[in-house]
């Protein structure tokens, strides 16, 4: 590590220590469940693993092994330690296997996710039918967060431990095997799997698996075939097991095989058959396609295979260019209000451009901010899109150094819009969006998704390398102020193309591949027959086109063509800027067009269709004119945009405070006394059955003061001020017990678990008044103070009400673990300008930034600076919320703990340099981050390594930040729910510094260069394997473990503002679902790349119909609820009234919620001419609704009734 980084981490750790000391002092006052801070700091991964698992000695051993071997190997090595009893304190064989399996999963997930504690319930040793013993591993849903490799390896580890312990293999019964097959299918249908194994694969795995995979029921749907099996507890799908089997074993077979080969004790020869797909009786055509293993899009790709094969077979006569096959998967489950931007590979959709912008990479998509506006503001920074390739989804980032959209305006102008402001102005005048502009994808994305390189658009950064490869003196041109290499004049471009052997400059390269040879021929005729009028005399030129008529460009005058549908469409598809009137098409910049059409400068036609070679005429069945262009034009013309990428909107971006529903200010139970709002004030005034104000009965943990022996529920003894401990007393025999190592409290004599919680009658009124007084607040200092109905933690330890009072005062609310959180969509950024973060260069220098990316001293606000690894940018909303939290924390320190204030925030800038915790759902480790600035985008920008340390990528995922001091003071494990998943999403441990080797390795696949080599672009045309280019295009992985691991993240594309484009997606600003859907369909009609009928069809199919069907089903089997007391009834009481309170009972699903979409759906189906099948489904449903909700005897009578 370099000096600079050492300083950086020390700085963070110094502030952390400062906070820690103060928090320890606060905790020492004894008001909290524990007297010390409950989030331990982990120095490295080994620490985290040990802390999460709670198994002593693991960290030390892990560190020993880490230097010698890979993490996977270390996991296997540890099995021996567990079996021999060197690590962990397990007596039973079950315990040893369990410890080894948990440790393996923890290791492979870098000790961050909750899978090792929540995803593995237990390990059992059971008996085979032949009397031998076998191992059963019992998985739970949260194993999902471990990912396929760790899941699969957990099985291998269990098997290894099994063999070392000399336990026999599991011998599955036939019905159990079939059960696996059925269950995996059921789970896939119900929840969905990344990879759906074929029946024979499931069967094969089940038959060969040497240990039994079992688990908790996770769904409601039950299997119908293989039910009530003796060794399977449930008839529902066991989600954890299904995941391990499908996404673990089936999908990662090649990876596991690598490790089984290293172990003598473990032999899984059947893996080879699984990998080869040579299993089962039938031809195995389906399974074989999956040997690559990782690609979930396989099915789609497989469909495409025949074509590709056909090409290969006739390689001697290639009849078209290399193209990736359209994939439709991203269109599945389309929902109302989230528009499709492009159908699969459809012309007019996004054009693939390679490169990485500074706010880009790691599952993001770079889109021009003008495009964001042009699609009716549906895309904002951070909006998730589901994409055709290379991955499945990505978060959108604004990049304005790529091309914007091309549109046809109502006034007849066809032009590209590269200015977001202009896009905003013209938004309403857009008649057709002919092209969405470019779509920036970085090379690493292809590596990560193991997707063959798709043919690249011809762009400046490629052309300039082509140009440099010629004899031209490019450096001289660069230095020449009269020459603009990126936007050259027509004259320059044509002369470079003809004089040197470089292809025509991309600015003048039109999309020839999008028109047919026939049309190309017609266009050549039309242009030859057109008329050139002097620019000055061209009355039709509008202000909007003036730019293109600047002297050096429009010197030749404007070309005027007859407006025929064929020619108009040809120009539109070529993306030639022009103006349309009723009779004419006016093309101001026409010379490159004419030359590409094989015309002379005098527009004389020098070729006939018959002159073209057969190859050019038949290229891509005559649908692609690019070969024809190359035969007739005096220069080489490359394909401008060979790869189009379809996509649609996924989730909208997010930047919102996380409130429980209803919001909770204090984790103090008040039962039903506070009404549905859980208002503590109301509850305190409430007269219960006793008639005394505020007397309530709630379940609370019983605690005992070790000093004076008094009992109570508070953590600090009200009598003597001592710190109390939970008191466990067996209800039956009265024995006082202590928790064992695993935290379990068990009464041997009575054979049951003992809890400290009991029903206690408390005087809430007094508690509440005392709390207000203690912190010196009045009830008027907040609107409402909300408690909870009951506590869900094991010991039912309540929070001091005082904390709630102060939270309510500052309008922040608590999560289930006592922390205050704010959620944001994750986005990466590797270099920033202080200016765009609404801070100054001074601020940055104070934070320790010294130079910009070029090594120049940091002096100005607009200098580009490489972001440090734990620095984060808060959205404006998050900053506001953090300020409120800081005020709350300061008040808490001062008024509750009686200590000094810590933050003293007066203005937003005071937040700069403060530390926060970043934490993702399904994980149990927080990462310390430092605030360096603010953004208007509704996202959290941070270094990709910061996100990866939380095990997030940036494909539209969101997670939260907490203020450091709030976490230290208010988090307690005591508050966590005592149920499956309760430990998830809680900061059980924190990482104070990020070690790039110990984060999700997805982030290592980000490329960090300034330029991709020319050969790379050429390789994309051959659709080569991205792995072969890792050496030429450096990815971050290269520098792991070196001095450069924290720095040197270069990018190929800059962008002016990382928050450009709309602040919020239209999806969030439009009101009702109907408005959103109308806007979605309106946009579908405007977009050339979108088939609006298909969109309408899908909205009905995937949104309206399931909603209608689901609600109708729900209606006819619904629960009911008492309107007065909230009691729920599975079925309507025969008495009609509430059995609890005599109140009015009503339905939970009403007619209104069932048929809310009916009319709209029918209308959309009509308007967009959907299939009869769809229309009839709606018809049948409409009749069903009528039949259920209309009285046959009370229908509107027609005139016939009176005749």
């Amino acid at each position, binding site marked *: 590590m370099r000096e600079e980084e050492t300083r950086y981490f020390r700085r963070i750790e110094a502030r952390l220590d400062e906070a820690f000391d103060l928090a320890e002092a606060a905790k020492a006052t004894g008001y909290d469940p524990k007297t010390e801070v409950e989030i331990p700091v982990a120095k490295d991964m080994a620490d985290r693993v040990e802390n999460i698992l709670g198994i002593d000695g693991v960290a030390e051993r892990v560190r020993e092994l880490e230097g010698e071997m890979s993490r996977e190997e270390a996991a296997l090595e540890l099995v021996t330690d567990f079996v021999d009893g060197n690590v962990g304190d397990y007596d039973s064989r079950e315990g040893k296997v369990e410890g080894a399996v948990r440790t393996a999963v923890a290791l492979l997930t870098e000790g961050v996710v909750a899978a090792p504690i929540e995803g593995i319930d237990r390990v059992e040793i059971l008996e085979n039918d032949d009397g031998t013993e076998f191992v059963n591993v019992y998985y739970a849903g949260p194993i999902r967060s471990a990912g396929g490799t760790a899941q699969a390896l957990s099985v291998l580890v269990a098997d290894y431990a099994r063999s070392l312990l000399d336990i026999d293999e599991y011998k599955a019964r036939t019905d159990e095997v079939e059960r696996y097959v059925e269950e995996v299918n059921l789970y896939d249908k119900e929840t969905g799997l990344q990879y759906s194994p074929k*029946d024979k694969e499931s069967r094969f795995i089940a038959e060969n698996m040497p240990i039994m995979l079992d688990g908790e029921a996770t769904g409601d749907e039950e299997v119908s075939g293989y039910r009530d099996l003796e060794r399977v507890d449930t008839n529902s799908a066991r989600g954890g097991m299904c995941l391990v089997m499908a996404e673990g074993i089936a999908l990662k077979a090649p990876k596991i095989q690598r490790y089984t080969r290293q172990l003598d004790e473990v032999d899984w020869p059947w893996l080879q058959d699984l990998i080869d797909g040579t299993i089962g009786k039938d031809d195995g055509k389906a399974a074989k396609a999956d040997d690559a293993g990782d690609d979930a899009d396989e099915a789609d790709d497989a469909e495409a295979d025949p074509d590709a094969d056909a090409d290969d077979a006739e390689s001697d006569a290639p009849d078209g260019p290399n193209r990736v096959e359209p994939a439709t998967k991203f269109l599945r489950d389309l929902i109302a209000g989230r528009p499709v931007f492009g159908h699969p590979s459809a012309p007019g959709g996004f054009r693939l451009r390679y490169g990485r912008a500074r706010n880009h990479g790691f599952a993001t998509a770079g889109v021009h901010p003008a495009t964001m506006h042009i699609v009716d503001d549906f895309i904002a920074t951070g909006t998730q899109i589901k994409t055709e390739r290379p991955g499945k989804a990505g978060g959108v980032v604004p990049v304005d150094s790529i091309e914007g959209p091309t549109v046809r305006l109502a006034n007849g102008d066809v032009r590209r819009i590269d200015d977001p402001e202009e896009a905003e102005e013209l938004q309403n005048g857009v008649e057709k969006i002919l092209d969405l502009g470019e779509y920036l994808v970085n090379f690493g994305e292809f590596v990560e998704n193991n997707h063959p390189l798709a043919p690249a658009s011809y762009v400046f950064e490629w052309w300039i390398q082509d140009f440099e490869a010629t004899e031209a003196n490019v450096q001289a041109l660069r230095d020449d102020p009269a020459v603009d290499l990126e936007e050259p004049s027509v004259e320059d471009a044509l002369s470079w193309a003809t004089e040197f052997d470089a292809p025509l400059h991309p600015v003048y390269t039109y999309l020839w591949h999008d028109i047919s040879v026939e049309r190309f021929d017609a266009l050549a005729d039309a242009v030859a027959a057109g008329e050139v009028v002097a620019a000055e005399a061209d009355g039709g030129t509008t202000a909007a086109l003036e730019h293109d008529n600047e002297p050096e460009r429009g010197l030749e005058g404007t070309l005027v063509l007859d407006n025929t549908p064929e020619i108009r469409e040809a120009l539109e598809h070529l993306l030639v800027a022009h103006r349309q009137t009723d009779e004419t098409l006016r093309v101001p910049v026409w010379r490159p067009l004419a030359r590409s059409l094989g015309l002379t400068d005098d527009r004389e036609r020098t070729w006939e269709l018959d002159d073209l070679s057969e190859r050019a005429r038949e290229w891509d069945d005559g649908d692609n004119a690019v070969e024809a262009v190359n035969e007739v034009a005096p220069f080489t013309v490359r394909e401008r945009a060979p790869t189009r990428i379809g996509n649609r909107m996924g989730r909208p971006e997010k930047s919102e405070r996380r409130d429980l529903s209803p919001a909770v200010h204090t984790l103090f139970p008040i039962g039903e006394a506070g009404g549905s709002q859980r208002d503590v004030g109301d509850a305190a005034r409430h007269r219960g059955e006793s008639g005394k104000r505020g007397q309530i009965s709630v379940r609370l943990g019983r605690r005992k003061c070790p000093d004076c022996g008094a009992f109570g529920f508070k953590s600090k003894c009200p009598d003597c001020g001592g710190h109390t401990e939970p008191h466990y007393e067996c209800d039956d025999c009265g024995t006082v017990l202590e928790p064992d190592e695993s935290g379990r409290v068990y009464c041997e004599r009575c054979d049951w678990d003992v809890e400290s919680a009991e029903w206690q009658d408390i005087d809430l009124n007094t508690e509440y008044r005392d709390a207000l007084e203690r912190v010196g607040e009045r009830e008027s200092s907040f609107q409402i103070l909300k408690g909870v109905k009951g506590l869900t933690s094991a010991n039912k330890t309540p929070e001091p009400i005082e904390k709630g009072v102060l939270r309510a005062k500052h309008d922040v609310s608590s999560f289930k673990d006592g922390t205050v959180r704010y959620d944001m969509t994750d986005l990466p950024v590797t270099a920033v300008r202080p200016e765009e973060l609404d801070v100054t260069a001074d601020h940055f220098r104070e934070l320790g930034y010294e130079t910009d990316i070029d090594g120049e001293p940091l002096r100005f606000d607009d200098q580009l600076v490489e972001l440090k690894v734990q620095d984060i940018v808060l959205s404006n909303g998050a900053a506001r919320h953090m300020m409120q939290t800081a005020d709350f924390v300061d008040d808490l320190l001062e008024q509750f703990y009686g200590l000094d204030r810590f933050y003293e925030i007066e203005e937003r800038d005071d937040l700069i340099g403060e530390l926060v915790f970043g934490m993702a759902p399904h994980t149990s480790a927080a990462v310390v981050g430092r605030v360096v600035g603010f953004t208007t985008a509704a996202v959290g920008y941070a270094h990709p390594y910061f996100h990866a340390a939380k095990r997030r990528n940036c494909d539209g995922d969101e997670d939260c930040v907490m203020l450091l001091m709030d976490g230290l003071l208010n988090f307690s494990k005591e508050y966590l729910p005592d149920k499956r998943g309760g430990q998830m999403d809680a900061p059980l441990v924190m990482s104070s510094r990020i070690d790039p080797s110990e984060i999700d390795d997805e982030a290592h696949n980000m490329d960090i260069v300034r330029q991709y080599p020319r050969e790379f672009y050429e390789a994309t045309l051959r659709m080569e394997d991205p792995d072969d280019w890792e050496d030429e295009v450096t990815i971050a992985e290269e520098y792991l473990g070196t001095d450069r691991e924290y720095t040197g993240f270069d990018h190929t594309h800059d962008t002016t503002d990382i928050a450009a484009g709309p602040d919020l997606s239209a999806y969030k600003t439009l009101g009702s679902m109907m408005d959103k859907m109308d806007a979605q369909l309106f946009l579908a009609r405007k977009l050339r790349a979108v088939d609006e009928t298909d969109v309408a069809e899908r909205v009905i199919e995937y949104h309206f119909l399931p909603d209608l069907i689901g609600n109708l089903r729900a209606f006819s*089997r619904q629960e009911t609820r008492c309107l007065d007391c909230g009691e729920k009834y599975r079925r309507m009481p025969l008495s*009609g009234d509430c059995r609890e309170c005599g109140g009015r009972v009503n339905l939970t699903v009403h007619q209104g919620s069932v048929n809310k979409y009916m009319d709209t759906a029918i209308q959309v189906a009509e308007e967009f001419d959907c299939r009869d099948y769809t229309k009839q489904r709606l018809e049948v449903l409409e*009749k069903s609704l009528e*039949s259920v909700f209309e009285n046959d005897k009370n229908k509107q009578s027609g005139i016939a009734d009176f005749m």
Partner: protein
Amino acid sequence: MPLETPARIVRALVGRGYNAEREAVTLIAGSDDPGRTLARVVEAAPDDALRITADHVREVLASAPAADPPGTAPTGPTAADAAAASDAVASHTAASDPSASGATSHDNAAHTSQSTPAEAKVGSGGRNVDPALRSLEIANDMTGQSTGTGEYDDFVKVFRDRYEKLSKMLRGRVNHRPAKAISNMSGGEDAELIGLVDDVRSTKSGHWIIDLEDTTGTFPCLVMKDKDIAGYVDELLMDECIAVQGTLSGDAGILFVDSMHFPDVPRSHRPNTADRDVQAALISDVHVGSQEFMAGAWNRFADWLHTEEAERIEYLLIAGDMVEGVGVYPNQDEELDVIDIYEQYEAFSEHLKSVPGDLDIVMIPGNHDAVRLAEPQPGFDDELRDIMSAHDARITSNPSMVTLEGVNVLMYHGVSLDEVIAELPADKASYDEPHKAMYQLLKKRHVAPQFGGHTRLAPEELDYLVMEDVPDIFHTGHVHKLGWGKYHNVLAVNSGCWQAQTDFQKSVNIDPDAGYAPIVDLDTLNMTVRKFS
């Protein structure tokens, strides 16, 4: 040898070494003297012919004096016939070969001996029936009577009606005291209660607590695990009506149950029978429009109905799922042969036309039909009725009680069977023995007791799903499995289906019984099954 049935013609041809096209067989059967025609056809057939075609027959017939086919003879071949023609020989053989139908075999000889040759006016179609002797009444039809508007009160009403009707059946056996009154009794007293099952749960020690509800409230009833009646608990479904007798606990908080009663069918039930030798065919789940619809089997069935052997069959009951429907499950369109729902019904109607026109037909809708899914399901609407006008079939709601010459047949499509099979132990109800699940419904005297689960309920004024009167025959379908048996003398029949195994069924391990027609003698309630697949 009389050669009036297609099967015999086929056999006769096979005996002479020929295969035959279906149409050829039809033509021979329809001729004045099939025996002579057949002989002439064989004689005239070219030496190298292995297969008698329709053309061969036409040639022969044209050379002879023309004969008008009688009205009841099968009409011209449909497209599906033509498609199935190639396997005509094999299938006809199977249909008439007892060994091929395995367990469901029937005895041709017995049938022949039971028939009444004296009355038989042998027509070429083989059927000789007198519709005047028939009677057919339908009760419990709620088509056009749906008054529910989906309000809370409608639900309350329907459950109250259920309680009223079912508790009445139990009143003779126990002396009911309202739940509220029991809660005011003192400990140790004896109490009897009739209620809908509101909840069943087990205690820590393995006993069972059943909450029973009447119109005054609920009361918990404890069934000790070691009592004989504990076995009943497994069979309980939510919202069925039972009666219990027992003693209140010391604190009067719970009732210790000594005996438990179900509305049930009385053991003494003596079923009604018809006064004459007449039969009904009970089928269901035709699924026309599905790629798996077995047109061949259906045509063989229809052909067979035209034969003398089938002439005593005067009633045809179809218990739902006429067509495969649209949108029943996701991406169903990919597995449809006929995608248009109206065309599906048209195709069904065409298939219905091929059964003898003199049959009395009754149809109820099922869950694949274009009718609301919530039960009771009203009969098809006018548009669909117009399409299915063939043979003046009677259309009624699901469920309905159809009385055929005095014999009460309860027709119900059977969606609740899935739930009964899922909830009850395998020995009480399974897909392999669907009739056992039907016994449970008979015992509970309700076709779909459990609310809130799989079965959907549409609230109406009355609970049309209660079996107020004991049926003599209980006919369901839906699960695509064939099963029948008698429960307290009630014949329970779950007819199979006319749809071959679907991919979905394959994936969940259901092997359907497709192409069977259960035939019931209405004078004896004896049943035989014919196989056509």
